[in-house]
């Protein structure tokens, strides 16, 4: 069959994009290759590893389980938009750096998006709550401990 193409307009990190995409293009591929925002990573394409996590209208979702066309008229946030315009780290990025919460860094963008949204909703999480929130993101390098410490530390910083 001929390509089935659709126009999509969406906001990404506050910037509006309009593109024409094949209906079957995954949102993860669209972000990475059509929009050249390669910070969002692909680990499994079946919704388990969480590396591709972005925020859709503020909520963490797996971009490998969405079609680009579904993002039409939505706002997404990716890791490229997490730091301030001047390059100042989000408290979670700073904490991940301080606590050595990343090694190869491949799972890191997905974790940053998942846990920054978590921290927006939970200002005083317990370690167990952090681990539960983190359990949908796989990391093969760190054993999670430093990531947990980073999240708890960022929470404390964000409480002020």
């Amino acid at each position: 069959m001929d390509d089935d193409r659709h126009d999509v307009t969406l906001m990404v990190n506050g910037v509006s994009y309009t593109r024409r995409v094949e209906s079957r293009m995954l949102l993860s591929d669209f972000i990475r290759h059509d929009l050249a925002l390669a910070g969002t990573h692909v680990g499994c394409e079946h919704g388990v590893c969480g590396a591709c996590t972005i925020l859709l209208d503020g909520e963490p979702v797996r971009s490998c389980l969405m079609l680009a066309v579904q993002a039409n008229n939505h706002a997404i946030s990716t890791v490229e938009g997490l730091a301030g315009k001047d390059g100042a780290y989000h408290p979670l990025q700073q904490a991940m750096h301080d606590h050595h919460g990343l090694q190869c860094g491949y799972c890191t963008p997905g974790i940053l998006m998942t846990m920054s949204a978590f921290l927006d909703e939970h200002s005083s999480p317990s370690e167990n709550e952090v681990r539960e929130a983190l359990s949908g993101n796989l990391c093969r390098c760190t054993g999670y401990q430093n990531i947990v410490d980073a999240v708890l530390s960022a929470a404390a910083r964000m409480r002020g």
Partner: protein
Amino acid sequence: MMSTRTFGEPVKRNEDRRLLTGQALFIDDIELPGLLHAAFLRSQVAHARIRKIDVSRALQRPGVVAAYVADDLGDYWKPGPLLVPPPPIAGTIFHARTQVPLAKEKVRHVGEPLVIVIAESRYIAEDALDDIDIELETLPAVVDLEEALSAGSALVHDDVSSNVSAHVRQSKGNYAAAAAGADCIIKRRFRYEHGMSSPIETRGVVAQWDGRANQMTIWDTTQAPVFVRNGLAAMLGLNERQVRVIAPFVGGGFGPKIMMFYPEEVLLPWISMRLNRPIKWIEDRLEHFFATTQERGQIHDAEIALTKDGRILGIKDVFLHDGGAYDPYGLTVPINSQCTLLGPYVVPNYDSTFTQVFTNLPIVTPYRGAGRQHGVFVMERLLDLAAHVLDIDPAEIRRRNLIPPDAFPYNNQIIYQDFAPLTYDSGNYEPVLDMALDAIGYQTFKREQATARAQGRHLGLGVACYVEGTGIGPYEGAKVQVQSNGKVSIATGIGTQGQGHFTVFAQIAAEQLGVEVGDVDVVTGDTDQFYWGAGTFASRGAVVAGNAVNEASKAVRRKALKLASDLFECSEEDLVLDGGKVSIVGIPEKFVKLGDLASRANPMRGAVEPDTEPGLESTRYFGPKMGATANGVHAMIVEMDPDTFELKILKYVVVHDCGTVINPMVLAGQIHGGVAQGIGNAFYEKLAFDDQGQLLNASLADYLLPTALEVPRMELAHTVTKSPLNPLGIKGAGEAGAIPGGPLFAQAIEDALGLKAKGVELLEIPLSPSRLFELTRTAKG
């Protein structure tokens, strides 16, 4: 003399910013004009003769540019090189059969590639796979190790008379005589399966041939860019200088990314030359289960002979090792099992024989631990079984057999994976055991356990010891250069997959040159930046490349001091190098910046003395004669649900000795990650191949990697026993965390469920709640 400023400090990482902000380049991020995409048609059966492959319909699909089968490659088609020859052990049998770029005549494991399709997008390439007509005549699959060796088994390789890939026997002393005089002999069959590396980033290759520049650039998620460059250049008929291999940021390696001349690595550059376009292949997660190497299982029939006070007289072990369909990596994994079984113990007599078996399963090459896990499991379990029979405390029986601290270097008298006799360079084992027992609360645990039991809770404790051979040769090199802006540049041939090389090597140089760690940039894994090296594997990066960086930095330091002493007309002893400048002791206002010295060393006018080099740089190599031996003890307390057999880790302690520590924060991260993989190996991860060689759990939904809820908080401590084999005194640490998980779980679970009293022994890994139910149901009590 300088004081330590950065070496040994938990310096935060130079590489973090790019990774945290999504600006780091990973292989799939590479976009090139005219980029084409590859997909593979892979065998769906484990063993078959190829009767027909017809790609004509695929070629007609819009967007498809080419499709190749084995015959299309002509002379280029050949089995890959043998990467590791068999070690020089007398009587060794070895049949080298290596992987091929595309299957010809026969397929030998599920996932073996048959056709490569090149198209405008990966989506279209995958569409085209459906268009290919293929006929395979299935053959019986060789899967079970013992059946594989029985008469009448199908043969994985028709030109080998059996499914024996290798047979090796190593021994020292006389086990039979030792056993004859033993008070206690324990003999058991053990089964140990290690799993797959499953990094979050799979593999990938991008090949770009530029016909006008006559230059091939290959981006590759390899742990060994230099070897890959050399091999591919030779295969393609190019000079090494025409080929540049770049390992960009790599999302986890853990071993299988050092397997070389994978079909995809071999095919993409050749196709790029033919089509004169860049080609990209990114392994998807499903492919990763078959197309990337993995580890699997061994069956050990092992026996230990002891005195009645628990001293080891000897060990005899006969084991089968599943090598998979091809054996390009030689005998590295089973030799590691054979050697690492000895552990930190005195074993006067040892007789170890293994058979590496061809099976119709994916290729086995090292994955973090690289066969050590299997050996450690056997030894630690034998000691636990002996402790029970002899009524000796499990920690005590280990203590009684530890190699004493004055016995080093300790020659185990058998050959290791680096082809040298297995010699432990240094070690002080008892304090490590004591610290671990103390940290886990060993003395008070029995009381706690009883109290918990009275409350209906089932707690158990495990302790396991191991040594780890690290830091082997052949060598690595580094170039250190001070630039005219005062910043320092390092290049080395190894690659990086998250170990913090950009920081750790910078610390070493910063220490010598008196600069800030943040002012040192490090390039790894680019063969145009550094020509020579071996790769990142076997816990050797920091040891070997780190020492090369140190030597080169020292040489640059000497040059800087000499230049400054010439400039100031004073002696070098009167100079201090700190804060990015050289100044005269006591007269800080008399200084010259390092960057200015670098400029001076590269004059635009004047003369340069013969036999000197311009610039403030140095290239040095480091090649240890043999590996340095790290060691450790893990201890763990678990709670078991006696009805569901679900497990929760309450406490996990690691005490580790890897000699001098460059960056304790990076080291701790390596241990954490290794422990997580050890937990996965022991209780969650299992490659469930059926008797047809089909993988029943080929997805991350069913191949269970531990999450943040399965990996507990870990408590780490370390001792420092420096290695005498390198100036920095360091030993490798990359694999340590992953090694003793198996016996630790077995011991702790037996303790929690009181299995010894019920006559149930845990002699296999992995375990799981269901498996524990099956193992315990026969023994009622």
